């Protein structure tokens, strides 16, 4: 995505890597969770011509009660998306060679140069593809393109460190401090994540810790105190609170998936402020939003 302005300094191009080892219920990029392509369906654009059904090699598409439905037989070949002139059906995710990706990124070089911007590797989890990401980061460095990685931190320790250190800044997500709670809400425990964060900070690498604030999940007094206690014991690191928002819901609908946090509200400004205060009192430098 070009002209991304929220994930790091200046004007940036953000690359979304597909596939993530976590499965957070609040994820606002659900289309990047799977390591394989995804299929999206924009119902409002669909003209119900059913040409897609006619061309589908797997016969996976049909109309049920006036709705165009796709069965599990779909193998994401994209034939339907090609035939759909209304662009109601699309396949998300494609393979890029290193050369292709660099060419794509270099299109906005002039904007990076002028704004101090660059490339943000997001996802999904970019560090789940360490080989490609390392090569890409090196290529960016050669071309004097600034790089930022957004990561959940869940990766094998050695490859994580050697790859992450190639980027100019790491935006490191912390979801929960309690390992069991972490497993409950994201699918994995967090010991490896914390070790990776500590290793990065020990190397004095530029890191920002980002905490998504999810009402009812990690905004209790206890959870806040745990964050404050842990982070204040680390080498100094700036912290950003990212208030949960519900704008990703539309994506779940298009992907044909359930949204688990249907009842969760956006955090109140007062609650965010309290969170910020708790962390600030622990001596941390905190900003809200992003």
């Amino acid at each position, binding site marked *: *995505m*070009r*002209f*991304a*302005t*929220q994930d790091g300094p*200046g*004007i940036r191009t953000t690359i979304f890597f597909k596939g993530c080892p976590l499965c957070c219920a609040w994820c*606002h990029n659900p289309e990047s969770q799977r390591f394989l392509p995804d299929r999206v369906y*924009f119902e*409002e654009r669909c*003209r119900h*011509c059913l*040409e897609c059904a006619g061309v589908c090699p797997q016969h996976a598409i049909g109309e049920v009660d006036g709705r165009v439905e796709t069965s599990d037989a779909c193998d994401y070949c994209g034939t339907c998306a090609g035939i759909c*002139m*209304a*662009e109601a059906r699309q396949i998300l995710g494609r393979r890029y060679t290193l050369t292709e990706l660099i060419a794509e990124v270099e*299109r*906005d070089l*002039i*904007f990076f140069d*002028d*704004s101090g*911007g660059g490339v943000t590797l997001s996802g999904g989890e970019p560090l789940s593809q360490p080989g490609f990401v390392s090569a890409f980061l090196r290529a960016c460095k050669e071309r004097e393109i600034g790089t930022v990685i957004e990561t959940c931190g869940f990766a094998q320790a050695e490859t994580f460190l050697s790859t992450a250190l190639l980027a100019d800044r790491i935006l490191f997500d912390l979801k929960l401090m309690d390992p069991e709670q972490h497993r409950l809400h994201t699918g994995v425990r967090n010991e490896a994540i914390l070790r990776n964060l500590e290793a990065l900070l020990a190397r004095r690498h530029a890191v920002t810790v980002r905490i998504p604030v999810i009402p009812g999940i990690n905004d209790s007094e206890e959870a806040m105190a745990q964050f404050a206690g842990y982070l204040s014991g680390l080498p100094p690191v700036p912290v950003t609170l*990212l208030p949960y*928002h519900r*704008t990703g*819901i*539309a994506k779940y*609908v298009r992907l044909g998936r359930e949204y688990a946090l249907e009842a969760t509200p956006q955090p109140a400004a007062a609650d965010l402020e309290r969170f910020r205060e708790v962390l600030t009192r622990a001596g941390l430098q905190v900003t809200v*939003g*992003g």
Partner: protein
Amino acid sequence: MTERVARLRQESLDTKPWLSLERASLLTAFYRQAGPLSPPVLRARSLEYVLANRTIYIGAEELIVGERGPSPKGTPTYPELCCHTLEDFEILDTREKIAYCVDDDARRIQRDEVIPYWQGRSMRDRMFAEMTPEWKCAYEAGVYTEFMEQRAPGHTVLGDVIYRKGLLDLKRDVAASIAKLDFFNDPRAYDKEQELRAMAIAADAVIRLAERHAEKAAEMAAAESNLQRKAELERIAEVCHRVPAHAPRDFQEALQAYWFTHLGVITELNTWDAFNPGHLDQHLYPFYRDGLASGALTTEAARELLQCFWVKFNNQPAPPKVGVTAAESGTYTDFCNINTGGLKPDGSCGVNDLSYLVLEVIDEMRLLQPSSNLQLSKKNPERFLKRGLEIVRKGWGQPSLFNADMVVEELLRQGKSIEDARAGGTSGCVETGAFGKEAYILTGYFNLPKVLELTLNNGRDPRTGKMVGIESGDPLEFRCYADVAAAFRRQLHFLVEVKIRGNNVIERLYSRNMPAPYLSLLVDDCIARGADYNDGGPRYNTTYIMGVAPGTCTDSLSAIKYNVFDQKSLTMAELLAALRDNFEGHEKTRLMLWNKTPKYGNDDAYADGILAELFDLFFDEINGRPNTKGGEYRVNYLSTTCHVYFGSVTGATPDGRRAGEPQSDGISPAQGADRKGPTAVIQSAARMDHARTGGTLLNQKFTPRLVEGPEGIEHMARLVRSYFKLDGHHIQFNVVTAETLREAQLHPEQHRDLIVRVAGYSDYFCDLTPALQNEIIGRTEQAGF
């Protein structure tokens, strides 16, 4: 803003534009009794008569004085150019938008005095009588418009002359030029003498106008009991007695000198884009600096004077147009566009303390007129750009942003000297000119998609069935895209020549019958050459034809090339049938053309390559052709609101646009065609060779959320600087309103390019669910400035 300014501003906003027949009545009376005078002297004497007999108005609390009409918003007519019918008056009085109040007296004067004399004699009548059948046919089909149909050539900007010289000084220059005339060897000596005598008469006429204001102010001062106002009126009398006869000595005199100059120009003729002080901050700076140094002026006093000056512009709505001309640019805006910043003639940075004060005035006044722009050079500081962007972000459309270094390059390419180029800038919408030295006349918008439509119909206009173009070949016989391009080129060549033949006749009609001796005094080198502004007197004489909708035209050519010849997903016959049926029953085809075809505005080499070819075609056809004034034809790309009119007369186009829908504006991508964000639009727009134009116009839309906070300003600043590094000419940010978003909900296809900031990220508005769209509309209303 002071209470005085607030009241004057409010009065300007509250007063409805109304038609004043005073000028028309005086002019007609003068013409009826005028003896056999040469055209320039006749024009100068008519100006003298009007200014000597018109109403003089000085409003309560005003510091800068003088109106075009008898009081604010009183708008004169120019029957010598275009004589309105009584039906026109009825439409002006009653139409919903851009109405002008017309009272019974005005109707009576028009019926009994004006129409009987001017009908058949106006420039409009004379012009149409001289145009060829081909010209009329293409004009009626909407292939082009004709600017001189209802207004006179103007399109120019004042340099620094009035701040150095009074009209008495200029009269001395005129006398010196007359003394040098060689009646033995110069066959035009007599013509020159008549023109120069006319200039001297016009100078006296405007001096007399100022004197009459001085007398009126003195009278009012004598009767004034409020001591402060009495002193102000006495000062006004002193100022009007001094300028513009003599060069101004201080800040107030400089502003008043310009204002009388402005009134002189826009009373003499109804010049396009009114008139314009150009680099106001640079011209006024010495007066400002010296006033502050001597203690005679304070920043606050300067601000108030500037604001009073601003109100003056807003008090003068554009004289009303009718018919097609109203459709192509129906607005009260008279296109006076003040330049701030840029470069000095010596090449150094032109931003000074007064530039910032002018920006504050623009911000506080928030008026339709004068329009304002930043001339941004790489030498100008970030603070200047960011201060301008803070105003841009408020979303009322000003100021626009220009690449001052590119303006210099464009002017140099056209053969101007480096000093003249740096003293230049932009006026009207985006037009490049050498201020104070050039007549750069816009002659008409040119409908590029219509040329393609004619090409696809072998010269015939499908809307009317008339043969408008030439037989450029049966499209069913086209074997490859090159055949399409070649037929398009033949069609374009024919239609451009029809337009230019007309232009060259109209130029002569103006030079013979409608000289502008007062304007000629102000533009170098009319005095030295003894030649009129409308007859090659200026140092530079440029004639422009404006390409409209390169976006729509590029996408349409791309659609043919890609779908018919490369992918072969559609035959030419199928395409023509879909266009003929306005896509009814061909929705799948339309969606393919709309969604699955490379489009300009996406940093896509396929489409942008076609844009570059189209640019060359139009450029090669027009650039460098001689006009009748010793100058040359050039191209520029702007559409004002003409892309809407042109869209209304153009059928369905191969890009998937339906018949009658607006075309793309300026050099912006077609509405909804750009889907990769602003950096991709900028890269595409930069594929156009701006250096070979006299101006291009690029609009970018943002919602307030996307540009909020210091980061928002920073991102806009970086986009601007980057576009200008890529040699872009102009960019304007439209911060969209909730109303636009609602419109986008209803017609998503037209707004596929609309980016909104959702939360931690930005997205295309039309890709959001209705619920989320509504939420963003709600937010936008809250954030509405």
